[in-house]
């Protein structure tokens, strides 16, 4: 427990330093707002186009799809703020032979390499996601009860943990494959597939987005909690997938570290 507390303290120090570093570059805040606005506008236009021709998509109404979009943007913001900077930094260090400096630290190595960097201005995406979700909540208020909110919260936490675990597992392959950029393209593509409820996809794709790379289930299940269609099976699956993803990515990382012989000169 002491080790975990110590690692959390180290993570908080890194985030504080990261935030202080980033606020020096205030222009990046403006640019991030432009980027977030463009992405949000694209998502809204896609939904508007669909609902220009139909009143529901595979049983999902327009406000319900905005709930999915909100979760997609929110989790995307969490990914860009806390996960991606660390994963890209790790891949770079393996390639350049600099990872030894990280592995030698007297803290948990996975925790350390996962919390050193902070994409501070991507917090804008988190805020945008919350705003979109707020609008969807207002539209769906009549069907959302306290239990739904609790399940939604649990679903979001599971979603964030799955996102982290998937990225962790993929970047760990950098120990064996030097060029992991192509894999990043796949994960990004699969994450974007989660912009729509996975229930509209054929079974093979639903299965892939639940069991193989569970990014779709990470977004759809929280959305189901607030759209009155969550089943105990879906919630159980999400929790099971989360436990498996976190455990497996941890085991994979430890296996990778054990087999890593270093590359520095």
């Amino acid at each position: 427990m002491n080790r975990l507390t110590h690692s959390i303290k180290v993570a908080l120090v890194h985030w504080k330093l990261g935030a202080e570093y980033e606020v020096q570059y205030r222009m990046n805040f403006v640019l991030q707002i432009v980027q977030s606005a463009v992405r949000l506008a694209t998502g809204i236009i896609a939904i508007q186009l669909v609902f220009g021709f139909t009143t529901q998509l595979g049983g999902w109404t327009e406000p319900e799809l905005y709930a999915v979009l909100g979760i997609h943007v929110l989790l995307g913001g969490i990914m860009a703020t806390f996960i991606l900077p660390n994963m890209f930094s790790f891949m770079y260090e393996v390639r350049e032979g600099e990872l030894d400096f990280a592995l030698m630290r007297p803290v948990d190595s996975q925790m350390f390499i996962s919390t050193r960097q902070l994409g501070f201005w991507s917090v804008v995406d988190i805020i945008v996601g919350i705003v979109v979700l707020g609008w969807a909540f207002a539209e769906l208020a009549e069907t959302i009860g306290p239990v739904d909110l609790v399940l939604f919260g649990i679903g979001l936490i599971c979603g964030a943990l799955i996102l982290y675990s998937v990225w962790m597992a993929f970047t760990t392959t950098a120990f064996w494959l030097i060029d992991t950029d192509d894999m990043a393209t796949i994960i990004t593509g699969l994450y974007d597939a989660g912009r729509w409820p996975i229930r509209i996809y054929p079974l093979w794709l639903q299965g892939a987005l639940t069991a193989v790379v569970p990014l779709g289930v990470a977004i759809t299940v929280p959305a189901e909690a607030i759209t009155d269609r969550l089943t105990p099976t879906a919630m159980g699956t999400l929790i099971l997938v989360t436990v498996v993803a976190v455990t497996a990515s941890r085991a994979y990382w430890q296996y990778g570290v054990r087999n890593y012989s270093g590359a520095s000169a």
Partner: protein
Amino acid sequence: MRRLLPIYMVEARAAVQRQAQYRGAAFISVLGFLIEPIVYLIVWRTVAEQAGPINGYGVDQFTSYYIVWTLVRVFNLALAPGAWDWWVRTGRIANDLLHPVNPYHRQLASMAGAKVVWITLWIPVAVFLTILFRPDFSPNLLEGSVFLITAWAGYVIRFNVLWLLGLVSFWTTRAQALIEVVIAMELLLSGRLVPMAVMPSWVQTVSGWLPFKWTFQFPIEVLIGQLTTGEIWRGMAMQALWMGLSGLAIVAVWRNAIRKFTAVGT
């Protein structure tokens, strides 16, 4: 042009060999690019099943459109403008400037060569998609030949547009926001997100005057037989126009950009 042709051949052949060495990575890369159209295909098939045909696009047309989309996407892959930021900021471009040939030609040829491998790797994916979604179209030899010409022309236009965008990195290291705006415009105005027939008519008019549609939708519609002969000729004329305009813009901007660049090597 005669001087450049051997250089193009060498660069393209080297790219084929490079990509063939890393077949696994190239296949993963192709798979990564194909997720996007599969999602659009499923969404718009669902809409067409519920709402019926939309301006000439029913379930079959959407299916054919997005399956050919995957091939056009492989054709028009070009150098990501974001790469320029690293290339200029770290001074790595200095190496390329020492070559006697402009990096534009080397990269255009290299990306074109890589496509030979990518298109080969695309074939099994296309077979899989065809079995899964059963598209209903059978292009003839002429349509296939015209498609190849328009797809390569689309690649050159897209390469030029993204190259121009990348050149912004000579003036600022914060080009990402501008890049995102242009990519969003491409997504909405090229037929990449949806066929333009699904868009409001004023958007269709605007898209006809911009380069994006001629890199995505035009080659797709040539192959799935959505265009008349007159429309194909007009489209090819627009492609020629955009290749010329973007080429001239590159010449003008490159001359100024290169004057901005200074580097200290070791």
